[in-house]
């Protein structure tokens, strides 16, 4: 699990049977008491469908109760300029799917902050007021046995000094190339190896447009193996699917997807990419999320994956590209 604190926003990402949403009311109190921040500007709550929903606690046992909890929380407040919340199921309800609740500024000029499905986003040229905001999440299951093995840690040999969990985490990151997903020197990586198995890491990344992050969480046990990779380093020119190297040395979107999936070798995966829709699109050009979809397919098609879902969304201020893939059987 991870928690990221920026001056204006918080990201709380928690696994297992944690009570994530029960922290929300306290977060709102803290923001008001300590920072005089009394208005929510935007909120996203999302998760992949649970493998064991019956084990969840509080509102997290069912998506509908999570949506009710969030609706009730926002209805009990007055956040000037904030639209109404909306909950979505993305992908197959009778299979792996992804769930999203979103609430944002109501006067974003489109649909009052509501999310609507749009198979191919219209090409519009909007002046970019600020560098576009990208957040990619790659959620992977059915990890290959060779990929799972390094995340099981055996007892230290008799008499040998046992590495700390952070030392073991750093060693694993180095052996698997996790510390090389982004250019050396750009990243401060904080890794942790859990006993007897499991791995988590946060990274702060210095890039051309400022500071970003990525975070990785791995559950390696067969039967319920899972790995997630989330990153908000902007792709900019790296979004396009030609493999021209980027000036700031950051990987293109295609390279990033291939590096991450090569480490975890998932049998199934979904990719979500949020792009703030201020992103520039030349008139008649292809919207960033459509370009992203092509890159997803290109990155994974040549690695033996077949796309099983492709869905694009537009909503106030953000566009979303969602796609799921499965490894083709030999």
């Amino acid at each position, binding site marked *: 699990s991870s928690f990221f604190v920026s001056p204006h926003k918080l990201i709380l990402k928690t*696994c297992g049977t944690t009570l994530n949403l029960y922290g929300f009311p306290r977060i709102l109190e803290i923001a008001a008491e300590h920072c005089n921040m009394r208005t929510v500007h935007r909120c*996203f709550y999302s998760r992949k469908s*649970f493998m064991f929903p019956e084990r969840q606690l509080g509102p997290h046992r069912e998506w509908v109760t999570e949506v009710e909890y969030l609706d009730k929380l926002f209805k009990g407040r007055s956040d000037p300029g904030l639209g109404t919340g909306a909950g979505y199921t993305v992908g197959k309800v009778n299979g792996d799917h992804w769930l999203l609740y979103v609430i944002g500024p109501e006067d974003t000029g489109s649909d009052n902050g509501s999310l609507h499905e749009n198979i191919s986003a219209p090409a519009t040229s909007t002046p970019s007021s600020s560098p576009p905001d990208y957040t990619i999440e790659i959620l992977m299951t059915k990890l290959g046995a060779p990929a799972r093995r390094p995340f099981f840690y055996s007892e230290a040999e008799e008499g040998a000094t046992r590495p700390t969990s952070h030392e073991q985490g750093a060693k694993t990151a180095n052996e698997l190339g996790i510390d090389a997903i982004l250019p050396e020197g750009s990243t401060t990586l904080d890794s*942790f190896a859990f006993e007897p198995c499991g791995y*988590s*890491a946060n990274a702060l990344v*210095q890039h051309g447009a400022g*500071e970003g992050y990525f975070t990785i969480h791995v559950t390696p*046990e067969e039967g319920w193996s899972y790995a997630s990779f989330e990153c908000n380093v902007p792709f900019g020119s790296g979004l396009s699917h030609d493999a021209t190297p980027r000036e700031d040395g950051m990987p293109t979107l295609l390279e990033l997807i291939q590096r991450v999936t090569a480490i975890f070798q998932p049998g199934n995966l979904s990719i979500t990419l949020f792009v703030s829709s201020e992103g520039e699109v030349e008139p008649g050009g292809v919207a960033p999320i459509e370009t992203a979809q092509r890159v997803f397919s290109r990155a994974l098609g040549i690695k033996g994956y077949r796309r099983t879902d492709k869905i694009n969304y537009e909503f106030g201020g953000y566009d979303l590209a969602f796609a799921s893939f499965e490894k083709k059987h030999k």
Partner: protein
Amino acid sequence: LNVSPFEGPEKLLEIWFAESADAVETIGTEQDGRKGLRLVPRQVWEDMLDIVKCKVLSVIEGRETDAYLLSE
């Protein structure tokens, strides 16, 4: 050994209180560039994380963001 399954898929909550960090008014003194939510003491966050059922394992502090690694 009967191991009970672990739910890896995370719950991801992202809350924005302003459009950007630049939009955050500085309250009090900015300590080494820190402002807004980054001025909240770690203990206050840890008390909130107790409600969520998470413990802080470590923190790395960047120029713009503090990244807490947690255990369930």
